[in-house]
């Protein structure tokens, strides 16, 4: 049982996302993270799904996804050399004074940006892989995380290879 990253190319039509997510819940598969957006093809979208399961379960997920008429291609890119990113927006309690300076220092170490400064809070924007965002969140907890918004993971293959060309 390990996390698999599936890259799913779908028709950009209404209802496609619910067809895909409905299939997961119906067949008892769990989604760890999900991100969806347009892609390089004008009439398609790409859904990146992270789900946990053994090989047989993942094979079944992929086969069932492939059966959906609006799904064009399903690729498990877990074994491929790839870059993965998530984005998080974190609102942290930052009273003027020393804690605010510390937060800004931490932000710079993590290459996070301060995108909003209020009288008692700051908002950080950070991108990276899951572990990096988890680490930053953990560090910021001591100051008080008032709100945290996180996207699902997106992934792309390194080098000239593309998901479409990968098997």
């Amino acid at each position, binding site marked *: 049982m390990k996390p698999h990253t599936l890259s799913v190319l*779908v*028709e950009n039509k*209404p*209802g496609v996302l*619910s*067809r895909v997510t*409905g299939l997961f819940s*119906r067949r008892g598969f769990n989604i760890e993270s999900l991100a969806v957006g347009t892609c390089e093809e004008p009439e398609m979208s790409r859904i990146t799904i992270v789900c946990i399961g053994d090989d*047989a379960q993942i*094979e*079944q997920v992929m*086969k*069932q996804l*492939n*059966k*959906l*008429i*609006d*799904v*064009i291609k399903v690729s498990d890119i877990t074994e491929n050399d790839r870059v993965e990113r998530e984005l998080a927006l974190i609102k942290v309690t930052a009273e003027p004074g020393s804690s605010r300076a510390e937060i800004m220092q931490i932000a710079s170490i993590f290459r996070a940006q301060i995108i909003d400064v209020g009288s008692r809070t700051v908002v950080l924007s950070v991108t990276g892989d899951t572990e990096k965002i988890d680490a930053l969140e953990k560090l910021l907890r001591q100051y008080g995380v008032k709100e945290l918004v996180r996207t699902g993971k997106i992934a792309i293959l390194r080098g000239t290879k593309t998901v479409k060309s990968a098997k």
Partner: protein
Amino acid sequence: MKTGAKILIEGLQREGVETIFGYPGGVVLPIYDELYNSSLRHILVRHEQAAAHAADGFARASGRVGVCLATSGPGACNLVTGIATAYMDSVSIVALTGQVPTSLLGNDAFQESDITGITLPITKHNYLVKRTEELGHVIREAFYISRTGRPGPVLIDLPKDVSTKEIEYEYPESEQVNLRGYQPTYRGHTRQIDKAIEMMMEAERPLLYVGGGVISSNASAELVSLAEMMGIPVTTTLMGIGAIPCDHPLNLGMLGMHGTRYANYAVTESDLLIAIGVRFDDRVTGKLDTFASQARIIHVDIDPAEIGKNKRVDVPIVGDSKAVLQEMRERIQKRKEYERWLSRIRTWKEKFPMKYPRDGVLRPQFVIEQLSELLAGEGIIVSEVGQNQMWTAQYYCFRHPRTWITSGGLGTMGYGFPAAMGAHFARPDQVVFDIAGDGSFQMNIQELGTVSHYQIPVKVAILNNRFLGMVRQWQELFYDRRYSYTELPAVDFVKIANAYGIDGMRVEDTNDVRPALQAAIETDGPFILDFRVEREENVFPMVPAGAAINEMIGGLNE
């Protein structure tokens, strides 16, 4: 200029549809108005569920796409059981539903229900058509998706304004459907087929395990030809019955929970299971890890998701049963004798024949045997669900594919009667019987109205035991005979039939069975037979839930 409704009717006719089953309502008024002057035949059912089952029965008996039509909200929701039934058994139907106008969508309008949402898990695909301009294309695509690959139900939801809007529209003469996300594989991989043949040559105890996929791909002739050429015995699932004649020497009958002892023994001892158009359903396999545990497995199916879903497979072959069987046969160079295996199977067959007491008591098995003899394997037999279904599967001698129509996967009580109506329109030349239980028949008994209205010559043989028999059987065997809510009061079905203007007959004695069946067959219109059978008869052999399939109760030659 054409309205959406007109485009719809034209589209159906272009797809070769002649008969549809439906029920009118508010938002489908424009469609019904178009039907009024159309050459399409519309059969008015008495409940939308029956429309879906009738379309399904039509599809199974004919191999064509069945069509049903219902209004929005309750009408559409009433189709759901029928659509789910077709989905579980991979039957090609197109369900058309009305919808509230697009301007009201999502407003909880009168008779609005999100039917595309509701049917998402039980359709192969579905459409909510928002523009009349898309309609022609959607119809073409829906029929294409429904009948190709692994067949299945497709639903088209039509908002009222889409039906009424007028547009300039000419049907393209030959529009190719090309869906980049849907490319079924028909031809099996040659190397895999060769590997399968190699395994057949290495095997000592091979067994063909065939199901509904062989029926739906019209591959019976190819199956029988391969079995005969190689001398490999065949067992069929409930859905595969009819793929090989019942009395063929290589046929072992049905396997699984209520299969024959010899079929289940053969699976257990086989060293090569050649599975074609089956899905290793739990009613077939019993305890999964003991199922065919000595066998290597070849699995042929058009749906890749079925391969390896329940059981690890040695040689997967994705493809259409017919094409793969044909190619297998062509590529086989050598022959092999499995004489020891066949003789072992013959011994089982002799030792454990299918039988029931012949003691003058009116038993349901006797009724089915009599009908089987009378029709001599002709006719179309539809069943309800439960004991009636299992006895028919066990004791009716089917000789042709598409003559046995039953709800296998979903196990829908009330399926048989309306499906029999549909089967009649598919094969008007055939006698159509619905073998029913008194419980199942009462689930869609309102269709007596339809059958009477159109004089649809469906014969119903009710095996009336005043019990929900299969549930009662389980209560008897596993719940200490505590018959909790399974006893039904007596119903005079002949009187009910008469009230609809339908003839019927009650039968209480074995001597009257044959004449009564004969009378039903000779009647031009519908006919209801009420057989008052032994009340606590059980279906045997039986594999208890969770047991291995060779651990059966009953069917021993005491």
